[in-house]
């Protein structure tokens, strides 16, 4: 990017600007294996055109000194797309479509720890690609719901069978969705919020 002409950097469109009253933001992460529909879901519910934040990592060559710019270092760029939903004039919700591989998560300091909760997207043709991500969320104590993105040629399992296969306790919601549809994606987010609310009520009682 040419910062010498910083006047020309395209910022948010007028309608994408937040009001000056915006004072706090919360986030939800949408995770799942390669190609399960994370980006599509972010795009279908976002009020702004989805944006991308990137992080660049360098991988140090083995046994080579750490001269910056040494040719043996390879750079890898990891991208995460995100969208936004204004909740009130004060509160904003951000949705992050996060790469499934946990080895990238540290790049975005506190991404999972600070999130209200997570949506795990699964594709029943490749259920196992989302196993690892669920385990990681369990280990970190991040509450999540499971949304089955129904591709037309994917096998359909009864929820009870999926629950057994995914080894999920009864209270964790599992629901079907079509991430291309805004109403369907919204329902998934709503299910997550209701689940978080039930946890909060339970937590307050114990």
């Amino acid at each position, binding site marked *: *990017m040419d*910062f010498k002409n*910083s006047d020309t*950097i*395209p910022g*948010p469109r007028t309608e994408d*600007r*937040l*009001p*000056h009253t915006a*004072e*706090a*933001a*919360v*986030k939800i992460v949408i995770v799942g294996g390669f190609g399960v529909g994370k980006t599509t879901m972010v795009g279908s*519910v976002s009020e702004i055109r989805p*944006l991308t*934040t*990137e*992080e*660049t*990592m*360098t*991988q*140090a060559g083995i046994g080579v000194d750490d001269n910056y710019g040494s040719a043996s270092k390879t750079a*890898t760029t*990891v991208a995460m797309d*995100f969208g*936004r*939903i204004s*909740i*009130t004039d004060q*509160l*904003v*919700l951000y949705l*992050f479509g996060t790469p499934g591989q946990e*080895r990238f998560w540290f*790049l975005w*300091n*506190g991404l999972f720890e600070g999130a*209200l909760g997570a949506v795990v997207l699964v594709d029943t043709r490749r259920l196992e690609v989302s*196993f690892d991500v*669920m*385990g*990681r969320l*369990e*280990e*970190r*104590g*991040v509450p999540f719901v499971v949304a089955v993105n129904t591709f037309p040629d994917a096998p359909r*399992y009864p929820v009870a069978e999926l629950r057994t296969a*995914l*080894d*999920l*306790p009864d209270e964790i919601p599992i629901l079907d969705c079509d991430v291309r549809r805004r109403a369907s994606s*919204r329902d998934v*987010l709503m299910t997550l*919020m209701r689940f978080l*609310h039930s946890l909060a009520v339970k*937590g307050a009682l114990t």
Partner: protein
Amino acid sequence: MTPPQRRRRAPGGDRPAEVPAPAPPGKEGEIRNPERLFVIGGEGGGERADIDLVTLIVARADPPVSATPEQAALLRLCAAPLSVAELSAYLSLPFSVVTVLITDLLAAELVQARASIVRQKVADRNLLEAVMHGLQKL
């Protein structure tokens, strides 16, 4: 057809960050040796303010003449509140680089940071209800 079987994991079972994760079935960006990954701008010293992807940043002043082009661009973008993630996207700069820029601007009192709300042990029910209400309008 029966689906593949997963086994649930216990909370806190996470291993320290230094231990490499088991090699995942290769797909995107083949990276072995994950313990030797570094974030640009994230190495070594240099104070970094506690900035989250959804911390909202608002400019407190016009860019001073002494501002670097990057700082000036950032200040112009956040004339109205904007999250760090959005700043990173519009500036086409990595999150870590934007964090460093903001840390300097905070120190110079040129921007204000509005803290993000992070998950508590027991989530704030009023907050969750507000989010649900907002989603209903969507």
